[in-house]
């Protein structure tokens, strides 16, 4: 009974945003310009369907960046051609499209895979074809264990947990109560947090959960309130659940520190939870607080420029997810320049050797053992004060 928009989903959005006409026109105007083949960047994204909030900004970002790169003359003197398919969040479709990208469109690199499910479906194909694949999905499992041709750009749930635990350590809080939803994001984050919590000398003294449709979490929070010694509460959640938890938390008068996850790192959370959000801390990427960053922050110019360009081009708010696509494409561009050619093996080696690339997600230093290349500095710890974010330093 879930809503799908069959008409749109069935429509195989195939867009070639080559500077198609533009490139031809340019070639005609400048007879001397090399009529070299364009570099082909393939993408399968969840532009419609339940994960459209991921795929939509990703597609817009890729289109925008390709337009800009081509207007500036392309990469290594070659224009970029973008081929995008909409998998509507369906892993089966993602597999089909990945196959088409590799076999028919013969792309040089794939930047895509909005969800972990669609990414996992395409990994064997990219590995077999020997084509670099930069995933935009969250799960650690995509790059762990390391796969030769697969990279990813977004930070992981585990890093969000570690960021929170490190903050707890610095505040000398060691007894944690967990409350999480039963959705996929919530469960995955809870699992990752439980895996690393021991490293920080933090003890989990309560572990509660709530359903996606729950209208009230006072029962769970009352139990946490009655648990002796709780110093901090961590809510792994997504959507309206964390806002309800935050309101119920204040209703019951709990005084322990409240942490939310990066899943609700948006202004919407503050708007929904209202005054109850005061004092809540959560980890977020630099992109969300672009203007609040220190001027000496290496990420500031990158995130401010991307945010400005995106919002001017598409008239909608920038999101972390579009940032993942930006990083995926720009990492490729960075590697192409260093490799000096589009040879797939050379491009792969150059990607793996990425060092000091500054993107929206953080500073990336990859290695043969790490195809993500981000560390905890990718996250900023934010606190809500007077209805706005403040970066905790």
């Amino acid at each position, binding site marked *: 009974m879930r809503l799908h928009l069959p008409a749109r989903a069935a429509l195989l959005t195939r867009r070639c945003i080559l500077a198609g006409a533009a490139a031809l026109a340019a070639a005609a105007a400048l007879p001397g310009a090399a009529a070299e083949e364009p570099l082909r960047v393939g993408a399968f994204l969840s532009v419609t369907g339940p994960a459209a*909030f991921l795929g939509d900004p990703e597609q817009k970002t890729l289109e925008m960046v390709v337009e800009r790169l081509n207007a500036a003359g392309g990469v290594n003197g070659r224009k970029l051609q973008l081929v995008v398919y909409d998998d509507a969040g369906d892993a089966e479709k993602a597999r089909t499209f990945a196959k088409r990208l590799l076999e028919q469109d013969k792309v040089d690199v794939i930047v895509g895979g909005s969800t972990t499910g669609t990414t996992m479906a395409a990994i064997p194909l990219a590995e077999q074809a020997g084509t670099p694949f930069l995933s935009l999905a969250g799960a650690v499992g995509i790059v762990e264990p390391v796969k030769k041709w697969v990279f990813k750009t977004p930070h992981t749930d585990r890093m969000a947990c570690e960021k929170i635990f490190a903050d707890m350590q610095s505040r000398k809080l060691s007894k944690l109560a967990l409350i999480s939803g039963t959705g996929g994001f919530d469960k995955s984050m809870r699992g990752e947090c439980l895996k690393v919590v021991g490293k920080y000398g933090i003890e989990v003294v309560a572990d509660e959960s709530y359903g996606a449709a729950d209208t*009230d979490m006072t029962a*769970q929070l009352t*139990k946490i309130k009655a648990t002796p010694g709780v110093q901090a509460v961590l809510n792994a959640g997504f959507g309206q659940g964390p*806002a309800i938890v935050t309101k119920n938390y204040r209703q019951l*008068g709990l005084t322990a520190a409240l942490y939310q996850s990066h899943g609700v790192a948006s202004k919407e959370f503050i708007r929904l939870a209202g005054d109850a959000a005061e004092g809540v801390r959560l980890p977020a990427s630099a992109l969300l607080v672009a203007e609040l960053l220190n001027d000496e922050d290496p990420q500031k110019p990158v995130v401010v420029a991307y945010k400005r360009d995106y919002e001017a081009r598409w008239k909608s708010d920038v999101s972390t997810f579009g940032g993942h696509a930006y990083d995926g494409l720009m990492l490729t561009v960075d590697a192409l320049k260093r490799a000096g050619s589009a040879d797939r093996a050379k491009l792969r080696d150059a990607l793996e050797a990425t060092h000091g690339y500054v993107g929206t997600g953080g500073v990336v230093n990859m290695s043969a053992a790490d195809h993500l290349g981000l560390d905890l500095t990718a996250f900023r710890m934010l606190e809500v004060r007077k209805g706005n974010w403040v970066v905790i330093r």
Partner: protein
Amino acid sequence: MGAQALQFLAAGLTAGSIYALVALGFSIVFNASRVINFAQGEFVMIGGMAAASLVGAGAPLLLAIAGAVLLATAVGLLLEKLAIERAARADVTTLIIITIGASILLRGLAQLVWGKGIRALPPISGERPIELLGASVLPQSLWVLGATLAIVAALSWFFERTRSGRAMRATAANRLAAQLVGIDVRHVLLASFGLASALGAVAGALIAPIAFTSWDAGTLLGLKGFAAAILGGLGSFHGAVAGGLVLGLLESLGAGFVSSAYKDAIAFVVILAVLFVRPDGLVGALRSERV
């Protein structure tokens, strides 16, 4: 322990009241047509979303809620007029499929009109919790309980004392006989859709300040309300109210005293058990007392 139990009780009764209102909507339509109206949850959504957008446009809260209920009622009446009535000769399964279609359509329209974001509605009288024997209760919870109580009382009076109410009960008990004594059953069907959608919208506007609302908020609340109606015995007035409250209390006490990991499971296991032991629901014995 006492204060804790009271806290669980307050949460359970609040959620239970909402489930009860939604369940009543299911039962009223079921009685008039033998149709399970799967669009019932969408009226809950329309109630919350319309009220939130009216408040956003500057309307006073109570006026916004009234407007939202009117809008949902109009949508309910249109659904009956344009879809259900036109398929009057079709069998019940077809009608149920029509309601599923209507539910998908309404969710799609809500996305277009109100967008995909989550919305908040201000509470009727502030957010400062009231301390009650060690439990802290939101004023909005009291509004939910009070409004539900008033609605149940008004509906009781309507079904027992008024001519239209009795006509609806007569149709539920025996459609053919009702027709023979001169009751316009088509009218009854229309009225039942109007009533059910209004009830859903009231529930939606009452719960939105506590639980927020979004274009897809109706699906799961509708499902819980359906479960409550089954639990109480589909078609039973008292059963719907009892089913809603029992379901709400089970969820909250289960989460509080047993484990929140099994919160949803507890409720559904109990429903399965009731269906095995008493297939007609808790109040199933009072079959002739159908709404």
